[in-house]
């Protein structure tokens, strides 16, 4: 399976998750303001990343050739703009979920005005020809979200025994899962940072057009994320020893163990960036199975898990069959993609692969049947037994949520138009020429 195929499957999966979850989230009006806002943001994160991943797949399929004409300029621009939207979404999400960092309406207005301003700044920077420069501060989200979710995670995971309860565990788990969602792919490369491996320090962010300053800042954010992950991994190992392991514990240990194994495979590789995946060398197969898999399959699954596990869906009796159907669709896409991935690495007879696909899909659906009820019925509260100070009440009008969805839809449409105009005016080619010529 080529990187583009896997990327496209991931894109389809994310767009599907985004559209379907938005439907369920819009119907769930009983949530606290921060959970409801967070749920809406997660849906739009999926949609933005899904469209961006589709654009990235087409860009990679074109061979990332910076020719003076061509469709690649549209896909490049769309990928970049969607990443800006994704960044804005992650910043917004870490401020309100799992606990709101914002304490009153004034805070909320200031924070979201700042995010909107930062997003507008990045869009303008990109449109006036300063894209792929240090001015964009690409990677800053890792720092902000990492600090907030990392602090919240430790604050609640290691709360004093007398204050620990299911809600504090859920808050810590949600923060931890969102950290995996955002930083998981980076944690695979932790030995590369420490052991000065070429595959980490040779990070070429944008196929030769990104300046050294951009790559340094990006790598520095990776170093931050790895430090954060190592600390959390150490905490979780201690929790495992103390008998307090949870889903996050096993996920962290798995990511860091895979990172360690990966070093032996990637240490001789010159590059381990995710879009080098899809080929047949051992290093590239490893990248496909780790960081690319994280981007394309694990992220949508983690996001969906968070939405279901913490009750952000409307899973009332009326909506439950629809929610189940959505989960089945996603499981089928994910399991068939997984088989395609294995088939690309271990070529097999078509009859055999068809039979295996049936078995895996049946297994996937079977897993869903067994676990769906457990998942939605699991204790999802983040509020019971937690001091009220953590959940200040902010009155948000219903119209704001509708406005948010309409605004996001309009923004995505505007991005499509901007990308089209940049393609038609050759703006991206000129940007690439300036970057290649050494202009930052």
């Amino acid at each position: 399976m080529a990187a583009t195929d896997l990327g496209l499957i991931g894109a389809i999966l994310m767009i599907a998750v985004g559209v379907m979850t938005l439907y369920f989230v819009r119907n769930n009006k009983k949530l606290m303001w921060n959970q409801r806002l967070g749920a809406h943001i997660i849906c739009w994160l999926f949609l933005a990343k899904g469209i961006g991943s589709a654009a990235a797949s087409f860009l990679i399929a074109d061979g990332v050739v910076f020719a003076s004409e061509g469709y690649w300029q549209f896909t490049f621009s769309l990928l970049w703009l969607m990443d800006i939207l994704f960044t804005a979404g992650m910043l917004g999400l870490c401020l309100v979920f799992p606990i709101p960092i914002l304490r009153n309406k004034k805070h909320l207005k200031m924070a979201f005005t700042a995010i909107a301003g930062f997003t507008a700044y990045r869009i303008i920077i990109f449109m006036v020809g300063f894209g792929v420069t240090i001015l964009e501060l690409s990677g800053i989200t890792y720092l902000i979200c990492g600090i907030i979710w990392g602090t919240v995670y430790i604050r609640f995971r290691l709360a004093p025994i007398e204050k620990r309860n299911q809600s504090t565990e859920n808050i810590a788990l949600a923060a931890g899962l969102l950290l995996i969602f955002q930083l998981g792919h980076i944690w695979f490369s932790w030995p590369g940072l420490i052991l000065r491996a070429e595959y980490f320090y040779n990070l070429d962010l944008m196929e030769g057009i990104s300046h050294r300053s951009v790559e340094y800042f990006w790598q520095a954010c990776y170093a931050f994320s790895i430090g954060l992950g190592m600390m959390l991994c150490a905490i979780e190992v201690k929790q495992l020893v103390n008998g307090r392991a949870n889903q996050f514990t096993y996920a962290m240990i798995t990511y860091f163990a895979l990172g360690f194994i990966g070093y032996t495979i990637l240490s001789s590789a010159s590059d381990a960036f995710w879009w080098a995946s899809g080929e047949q060398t051992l290093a590239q197969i490893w990248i496909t199975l780790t960081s690319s898999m994280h981007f394309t399959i694990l992220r949508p699954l983690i996001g969906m898990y968070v939405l279901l596990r913490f009750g952000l869906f409307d899973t009332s009796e009326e909506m439950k069959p629809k929610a189940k159907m959505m989960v089945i669709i996603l499981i089928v896409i994910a399991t068939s993609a997984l088989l395609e991935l294995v088939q690309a690495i271990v070529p097999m007879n078509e009859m055999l692969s068809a039979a295996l696909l049936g078995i895996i899909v049946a297994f996937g659906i079977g897993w869903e049947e067994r676990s769906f009820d457990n998942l939605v019925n699991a204790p999802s509260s983040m509020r019971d037994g937690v001091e009220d100070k953590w959940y200040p009440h902010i009155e948000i009008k219903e119209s704001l949520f509708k406005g948010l969805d309409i605004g996001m839809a309009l923004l995505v449409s505007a991005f499509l138009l901007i990308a089209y105009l940049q393609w038609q005016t050759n703006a991206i080619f000129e940007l690439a020429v300036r970057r290649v010529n050494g202009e930052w």
Partner: protein
Amino acid sequence: MILSDETILQDLFSEDAPKKTIFALYGVVMLMMSYHALIYFVVDAEKIIARNDVQEYSVDFLENTSISTESRVVVDGESETLEFTADENLYNTFNGFGYLEITVSYAETGGALGGPCDTVSVDIPPTGASADWQHPSNILAGNSDDCSDINLYIVIFQEYNGESLTIAGGSPESIASQWTNNEFGSGTFSINLNVDATSLNPAGPLQDDDEEITVTWNAHFFSVVVEEI
């Protein structure tokens, strides 16, 4: 419901918070970022800077021309076709077949001494061989009525014009591979020859009713030489 007037920082770092662990987290991330900066700017700085320098290469082409000549007598008002296929050994010797020059020459050989030159027209159909048939520099047809040569030109290897280039980035091997292809020029080229004979005295005994035409095929093969600047 209690509305907290305290800031979130006061709550996060309140007395019952695991402050040591939280500050240890901040310490570890600072340590990692400092370590990365140390490696990036001091320990492996030269290696990283060298990697970011874009190497420039000069690309030169050494040409070799293979000449093949064939003559044919073409009867007035009729058409003859000559064909040309490049020697296969040339493809193994050189990186590519750059372009093909065809020279069509003739002299007034029939009729009365000192009679007017015949009119010769030639054309090369863009079929039968692999070439950059749409290239604007191509000359695929021509004619002559004063016994001057007719020169035709076909670009075979796409984008090839024989001029040296400077390329930034890539490797010598990858650049050379871009200029190596033995598909271009494969097949058979053909040229159609037409003669419109002209006699001084159409009714006399020394009628000019044909002409001998010589076609010279100059196949320009090239070797590519890539060197660091």
